[in-house]
């Protein structure tokens, strides 16, 4: 079963614009991670945010976590065509190791 739900399911933006996607989850977590997947194949790890953190940055990526609302957001600034991909959030429960993924957000960046 999927722990997380991403919103929106699909997003189309112009190159240079920002892309924001959200993830909601159901149970308490140890950490939350975001992954990118191109062409339905290998997953690339983008960023990990722990349950005691509220915000994290990595390059053009900004992730927030609100454990009281059980939600996270991923912001990609100044998007590029190469950012076209599916983005997944995945949670890891306390004392757990399994990644529980949402269904993903498909992002299309138009040149």
């Amino acid at each position, binding site marked *: 079963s*999927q722990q997380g739900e991403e919103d929106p399911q699909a997003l189309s933006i112009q190159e240079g614009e920002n892309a924001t996607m959200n993830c909601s989850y159901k149970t308490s977590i140890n950490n939350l991670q975001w992954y990118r997947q191109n062409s339905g194949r*290998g*997953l690339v790890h983008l960023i990990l945010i722990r349950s005691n953190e509220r915000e994290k940055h990595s390059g053009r990526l900004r992730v927030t976590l609100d454990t009281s609302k059980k939600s996270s957001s991923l912001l990609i600034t100044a998007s590029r065509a190469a950012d076209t991909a599916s983005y997944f959030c995945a949670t*890891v429960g306390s004392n757990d*190791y*399994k*990644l529980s993924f*949402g269904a*993903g957000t498909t992002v299309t960046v138009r040149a």
Partner: protein
Amino acid sequence: GAGVSQTPSNKVTEKGKYVELRCDPISGHTALYWYRQSLGQGPEFLIYFQGTGAADDSGLPNDRFFAVRPEGSVSTLKIQRTERGDSAVYLCASSTTTRINEQFFGPGTRLTVL
């Protein structure tokens, strides 16, 4: 260094056949995971190995699915009597024991059951 590799990259088989999917983890990674991703969905956990033993196989959908890791390195996911519903991308990931939250994924095997 080399990442996680998976073979074959694509496998087409007929309903009822037996298939084996191979995963070669990153050298030195003692933890290995298998996930399955159906079309339009996120990956779902199947099984977790710590060394040679399956520490958690709670995600295997039924007894047609089995996985081994006899020497604590390469793992093989075996599916007997394949069904059309088994069609999916099978992803393997590995990690160190001390950093189990940092899982590195392979490119996956796309299994199509006709």
